[in-house]
């Protein structure tokens, strides 16, 4: 499939990949219905897409603009302008906290993120917000002289049709820095992960540089705010890490084209950028299973070794790590086996976490992913992470797709009655806690990566299980905000209509 960098607006996930946000069944059936290998190209009317028919009830979720905020807003020497009414700026609080803690974790100076809102009002809805956008760009430049300015659009500017592209182009020239429009109106895509792609699209178009010499030991690692696990790991192979997009500088982003390879820890996040870097700049994307569990990490490292010509070093490292980690994992297995876990996270990330849980002898009968991409941008079956999970670690009986609809979560958890859940993104944890189920919020998304990740996650789970008492007490004293009749219903009865009903 071909990524089109020619237009300022990114093609949404559902257009490119056939993304679905509501589905219920076993993991193996989802693999089958995704037709990854036959399909390989964008949504083409496979059964999966036909089946999905958004039902009558929904709760608030997240939006593309928020993903722009947490990527473009976290480039250390850039500023993000939110071209929106002030309410869109409310989420700065969440992302500022992530930014600051991530800086601390990586040993960088802690500071607030720089975001400026154009603060649109009713007049602007009538007459357009372009004047304000220009003022804001000038103001931002005078205050901070950033290395780049990102402009995130909003639902309101999308509807009134502000020509953000022309203004961006004009000020790119005037200021001599990239001024980059990121089209991320919340209503334009059914899933917020399009916002990742929107940010990456803008960076690829206006920041990544052409025609520089390659750096044969540099590897782009596409991540968010996780702790620094890749630098020591790749150092063993004689490779340097270029962390992008979060916490990078504009020049880190510019040099992505010079790297020897691109890797990720989650296909959901890295699919677009990694594929486009290969297509447009010839930087090979490491097409392998994600680096979780022994099998996944082995395969991921071997492919990275092959692409960067470090095969021998990789084998030495694998052997050394197996020797070190296997006894630790065995010990954790002895303590954790028989415990039941549940994973509720972003799509491809859950595929990795389930693998790790199973390495630890934990039973996983259910998982909730916030969306599902039947295929990733490369179209390469080696990146079919769900199929890899099912083939190597077995099926997951209840594998549900839901864009974080809390009202379904009670019923989903009741199906499997887990002892704990792993959660990334808030919103679901409160409900689990009210049901007496402890949740690990996975603040550091790199926690479970690689060989050491199995040990880390195992230890975190032991910590969570120790909190059970608090949760049990809480469950005895809370009232759930849902009707009893609903809690006893099929969690998908208001979300997916069967094909027959959909056609009716």
């Amino acid at each position, binding site marked *: 499939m071909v990524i089109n960098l020619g237009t300022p607006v990114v093609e949404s996930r559902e257009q490119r990949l056939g993304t679905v946000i509501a589905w219920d069944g076993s993991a193996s059936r989802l693999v089958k219905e995704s037709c990854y290998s036959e399909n390989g190209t964008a949504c083409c009317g496979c059964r999966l897409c036909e089946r999905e028919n958004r039902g*009558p*009830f*929904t*709760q*608030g*979720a997240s*939006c*593309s*603009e*928020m993903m722009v905020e947490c990527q473009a807003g976290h480039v250390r020497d850039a500023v993000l302008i939110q071209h929106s*009414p*002030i*309410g*869109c*700026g*409310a*989420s*700065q*609080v969440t992302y*500022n906290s992530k930014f600051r803690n991530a800086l601390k974790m990586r040993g960088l100076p802690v*500071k*607030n993120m*720089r*975001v*400026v*809102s*154009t*603060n*649109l*009002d009713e007049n602007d*809805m009538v007459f357009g917000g372009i004047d*304000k956008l220009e*003022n*804001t760009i000038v103001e*931002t430049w005078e*205050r901070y002289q950033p290395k780049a300015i990102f402009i995130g659009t*909003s*639902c*309101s500017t999308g*509807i009134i049709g502000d020509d953000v592209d022309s203004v961006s182009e004009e000020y790119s020239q005037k200021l001599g820095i990239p001024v980059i429009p990121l089209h991320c*109106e*919340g*209503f*334009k895509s*059914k899933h*917020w992960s399009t916002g990742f792609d929107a940010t990456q699209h803008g960076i690829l178009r206006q920041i990544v540089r052409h025609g520089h010499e390659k750096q044969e030991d540099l590897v782009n690692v596409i991540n968010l705010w996780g702790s620094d696990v890749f630098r020591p790991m790749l150092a063993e192979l004689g490779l340097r890490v270029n962390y992008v997009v979060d916490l990078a500088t504009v020049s880190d982003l510019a040099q992505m084209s010079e790297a020897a390879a691109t890797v990720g820890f989650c296909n959901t996040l890295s699919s677009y950028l990694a594929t486009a870097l290969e297509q447009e700049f010839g930087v090979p994307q490491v097409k392998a299973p994600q680096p979780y569990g022994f099998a996944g990490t082995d395969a991921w490292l071997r492919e990275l070794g092959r692409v960067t010509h470090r095969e021998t070093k990789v084998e030495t490292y694998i052997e050394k790590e197996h020797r070190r980690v296997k006894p630790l994992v065995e010990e954790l297995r002895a303590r954790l086996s028989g415990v039941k876990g549940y994973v509720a996270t972003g799509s491809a990330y859950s595929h990795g976490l389930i693998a790790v849980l199973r390495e630890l002898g934990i039973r996983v009968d259910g998982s909730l992913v916030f969306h599902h991409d039947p295929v990733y941008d490369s179209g390469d079956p080696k990146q079919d992470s769900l199929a890899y999970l099912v083939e190597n670690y077995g099926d997951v009986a209840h594998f549900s797709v839901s*864009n974080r609809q*809390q*009202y379904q979560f009670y019923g989903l958890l009741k199906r499997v009655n887990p002892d704990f859940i792993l959660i990334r993104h*808030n*919103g679901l944890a*409160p*409900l689990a806690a009210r049901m007496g189920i402890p949740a690990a919020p996975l603040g550091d998304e790199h926690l479970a990566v690689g060989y050491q990740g199995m040990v880390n996650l195992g230890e975190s789970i032991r910590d969570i299980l120790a909190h059970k008492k608090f949760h049990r007490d809480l469950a005895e004293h809370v*009232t759930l*905000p*849902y*009707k009893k*009749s*609903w809690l006893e219903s099929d969690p998908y009865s*208001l979300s997916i209509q069967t094909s027959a009903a959909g056609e009716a």
Partner: protein
Amino acid sequence: MSKVIEQPRYSCALGAQQTVVAIKRAVPVLHSGPGCCNKITSLIGQGESYAGGSTIPCTNSNERDVVFGGVEKLRSVVNGALQVVDADLYVILTGCTASIVGDDIDSVAQEFRDAGKPVVCAETGGFKTNNYRSHEVVVNSVIDQYVDAHRAEGGVQKRLVNVFATVPYQDPYWNGNLAEIKRVLEGIGLKVNILFGQESEGLPEWKTIPNAEFNIVASSWVGLGIAKHLKQKYGTPYFHFPYLPVGGVETSRFLRQTAEFAGLDKNRVEAFIDSEEKKFYSFLERMADFLLEFRYGLPRRFYSILDASYAIGFAKYLVNELGVVPARQFIVDDTPEEFRGEIRGEFAHLTERRSVSVEFETDGGIIQQRIRQDENKTRALILGSGWDRDLAKDLNADLLILGVPVEYRLILNCGYAGYRGGLRVIEDIYDRVLDTYR
């Protein structure tokens, strides 16, 4: 023309979803884009409460709704909400998408009401205004579309009052503040509809709003729009106390003025005030040795980066009762022009000797720049928000987080209003000062 904002300290009009969340067993139903309710919750919603945050039903507007209108989807989501969410009142609120497109939400709400369902609506498209002002819009909509039809029998009840004192969640200490205000008003013999939070009886209480003898607005300007509306609708008079009463002097003043307005029995009122003041000052007395010995360590000046009610309330308490001197005072609630004169007046007459000028400024970037430019010779106290943490650290100042985002504090029942709140202020300021000691 409104200007750019860095570090937002309030939300858009849709932020009034939190007004609904603060009413017992009420739930907002958003007709908006998919991210709005979680964005808002992250700034003004520590804790989901009963049915806030990710529980909030939302139409998650998509392109189709924007092009063809989203009324059908709204109808279906309200229907779903009635089946799924266990609540007694459902409040439809629009976001930018539905407000620009112009979906007719009134008809949808009316249809449900005609079918006997407790559904009301309000226009809160984000661009319309901020959540201070839309708090009034939402409260008035609930009154007009719900309370009015369900109003309690019996006409005006002597001594019953409705209190509009603070904007729930925008004031992060709203629950504690309202509890204390209710407590002291009951102390002087009133029966209080506090309307929001723990101490409210929820919707049965709302149904008696028209029966109040009078309304109290204890806030510099937010709430006046509700009191005026109630005066027009039910002829209920109102008493306006133009800031948050904090500490001994101001709380007693608040109670005496209220009592005078209501014509309450003076002996009873004075007896209550007397017993409260005794308690309040006895704590200070008992600590006098510590406070005085310690005096060299207290901040000398304070900056405010607060909304009008907090700024005036705290300035009066800090200046008149604790002897801390005001430095620059920033009012960050985007106060409507018509109310600014009175607020300037309050600061101009802070004490007989001291006059302070205030700056109305909503942009955190500018505010911090101005504070940094000040001569920073003596230790300062900053009354601000989580955004001001680095500023405080750089200036070697103490920071008391009173406004959103609170970020670095967990708030359960803490409040700063009234006698009890006044003591809490002292505890918390000293807490920060003592924490810097080796």
